[in-house]
């Protein structure tokens, strides 16, 4: 439910990221958010024994990842009773048949084995990354490259080629070790893919091109023009650094002085309103083919 309200890192140099509702995995300030992560780890031998018993007695219904199995058992990782259980004291009666009327069969299991299964389940819960996401399972291969490279080439020629070239700044872009998701985020954002959540990209991705700076031209009432790298701008002030390194700031009063901002990502920003998802997938397929 909660989220990060972030200034997407694409405009100007003045960025204020506002953590509106932003729990970090494991909480902040050293306080783990998920009680299971605060448990003292159980004896690994006990957890391993619990895993073995779970595989034998529980797995077919509740699944190898505890999120429910082929036989229709419920997801244990979000079950209230499981979350409240500490050492098998709540799980035990259910395992022993207290919910037969709800379809949970009675299983013969010693109290020590119940404790082992409980320890195993809590060890899995403790691996949950936060915000209720499931603990990581085995990696799945996802086919992100579904686009039509030929259509992507045509789109690129029509919309991108004024600024970019696959024999120039994007030479060999498809040969770089970006991954399809990384490549797509990179070009859609114009090199500034911002923050997000979920499985984080495995590695930091270097900018696709030498990132051009946002510059500004300030025209004073005298007609004098002052140009430079934009440092910050709001309704009341504009600050820049001139080519010789001199900082300048100008108070703004409505349209005086005249302020023209040259944002190298302006075209990317405008395109966000026009892309279809197919356009995006096509261009990604095309760029992935540029080896």
């Amino acid at each position: 439910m909660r989220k990060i309200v972030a200034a997407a890192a694409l405009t100007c140099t003045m960025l204020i990221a506002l953590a509106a509702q932003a729990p970090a995995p494991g909480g902040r300030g050293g306080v783990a958010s998920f009680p299971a992560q605060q448990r003292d780890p159980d004896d690994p031998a006990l957890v391993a024994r619990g895993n073995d018993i779970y595989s034998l007695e529980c797995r077919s219904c509740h699944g190898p990842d505890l999120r429910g199995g082929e036989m229709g058992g419920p997801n244990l990782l979000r079950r209230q009773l499981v979350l409240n259980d500490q050492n098998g004291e709540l799980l035990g009666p259910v395992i022993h048949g207290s919910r037969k009327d709800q379809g949970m069969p009675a299983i013969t299991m010693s109290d020590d084995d119940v404790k082992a299964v409980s320890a195993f389940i809590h060890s899995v819960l403790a691996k949950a990354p936060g915000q209720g996401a499931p603990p990581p399972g085995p990696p799945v291969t996802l086919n992100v490259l579904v686009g039509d490279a030929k259509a992507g080439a045509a789109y690129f020629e029509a919309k991108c080629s004024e600024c970019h070239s696959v024999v120039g700044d994007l030479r060999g872009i498809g040969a770089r070790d970006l991954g399809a998701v990384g490549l797509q985020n990179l070009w859609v954002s114009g090199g500034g893919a911002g923050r997000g959540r979920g499985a984080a990209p495995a590695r930091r991705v270097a900018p696709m091109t030498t990132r051009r700076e946002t510059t500004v031209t300030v025209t004073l009432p005298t007609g004098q023009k002052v140009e430079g790298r934009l440092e910050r701008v709001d309704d009341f002030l504009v600050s820049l650094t001139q080519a010789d390194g001199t900082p300048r700031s100008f108070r703004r009063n409505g349209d005086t002085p005249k302020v023209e901002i040259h944002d190298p990502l302006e075209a990317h920003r405008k395109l966000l309103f026009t892309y279809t998802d197919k356009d995006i997938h096509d261009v990604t397929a095309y760029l992935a083919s540029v080896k």
Partner: protein
Amino acid sequence: MTVKKFILAASLVVAPVLLTGQTQSGLDPAALLKPLGASWPTFSGDYTGRRHSALTQLNQTNVKNLTLAWTTRVVTGARGGVPPTIIGGVGTREFTGGTVKGAILAVDDVLYVTAPDNVWALDARDGRELWHFFWKTRGATHIGNRGVGIWRNYLYFETPDNYLVSLDAKTGEERWHVEIADLNQQYFSTPAPIIIGNHVIAGTGNDLDGPGFLQSFDPETGKLQWKLYTVPMNPGDPGLDTWPSLDAARHGGGHTWMPGSYDPETKLYIFGTGNPTPAYTGVGRPGDNLFTCSLIAVNVDTGKMAWYYATSPHDTHDWDSVQTPILIDATVNGKPRKLVSMAARNGFFFTLDRVTGEHIATTRYGTATNWAKGVDDQGRPVSEPAKEATIPGALVSPTEGGTTNWQPPAYSPDTGLFYTQEENAFNMLYLSDPDPRGSMGLGGKIRIEVGSTPKFLTALDPATGKVVWRRQYANPGGGIGLLSTAGGLLFGADGSGNFVAHDAKTGKPLWHTRVGAISNAPQTFMVDGKQYVMVATADQLWAFYLY
């Protein structure tokens, strides 16, 4: 005018329950029925959610002379010092580093300020600390605290580890605490409790597929009065036909993590609910998923739902509809109507009849909002399935954070305008957990922000939902809530570190000062005949007045 003068009006409301030996001092609950004036006694100032102050000392002519009255820093944690911090809590952990992201109550010349696990009382004249209460925690998500509620001499606040704590407002000493949600199930509590008559209305939150609920407690004892679940919990419950199974509904979310508004004429407390869960993988929960992402009206005495309206049926983007609803009286089609309006996180603006829940208007106010095909005959957005998280990626606006979020909007009865901040950014949403069972919580997706487009201060006509004007911010960040005053002013943060007073009619800036990244919505109050406006920047408080 002080709060005490309001007490004369107490007979107009439900007589609050007075227990033997209790004095009548402190804030009478009847004061909360008055228009917002010298004090700021509840989350939005008053029950309407308008954040419109009747104070006029500051106006469009003299606001240019607004100057710093005082600034002070609040320090979290179990520190020593003078006066010494009062320590409470059931846990053993000490969370520090929380910031001020909620309402600051101003009652009887005292300010009550909060951060997660912390409450401070400050002298409103100079910010001097009168007392500080710190709660040791059992853990939980420490994301924010939206403020205290006050009933007579008692304060109420919620802790991240799910206690409703009552303090003596004069001394900061704890009276009692009661557990309001289960930490093991990953509930965490951030809202400001809302005091209505002899009810303490408390919401809570959860990221792990727990059911949402709203509760009412006795202000004297902390005893539970009623509990309203926001998803079906039992066979036969209303809304169950909008879920594939009872189990799905009982893990369906719909959390209550922002305060609502209250209409004393109908005794209806109107609040919004959070997203259904799992948030991004809706495959396991086909249907409208009632009563998540909805406006709900509940009778404060009975805890029974009077009406509901789904603002995001079957949400799959984590767009909680918990934004502050505003009660508005306006003319619609030539007839005076009692309305409630919400600028929702999903980029759509809604106006309903607040007595019946009848739909009046829906508009798409988020300039970049691209996830819906349109609206249905009830004005509800119809989502475009291709704009859910997909394996090859979907370009979606708004981002997860929404067109707006918890930042409070405002409404001025003088201009007739509903003010909100409008963020227009895009993210790519990738389905990373294509398991047909669906994922859990906020899992199952990769989300990357790929670009921001202009962000606005936006004024709407609530009767039609039409945008009357937009004023573009120079930067896409920021915007943290608004305050309207009868002096014709609209205060807000500009996302560039400035605290700005705008002309409420046009949005034109009339005064500003650069205080840094503002972390809560502006407020106003009056002490010693002087009108103050204040904001917080993380742990720093800033109060301004006319010298």
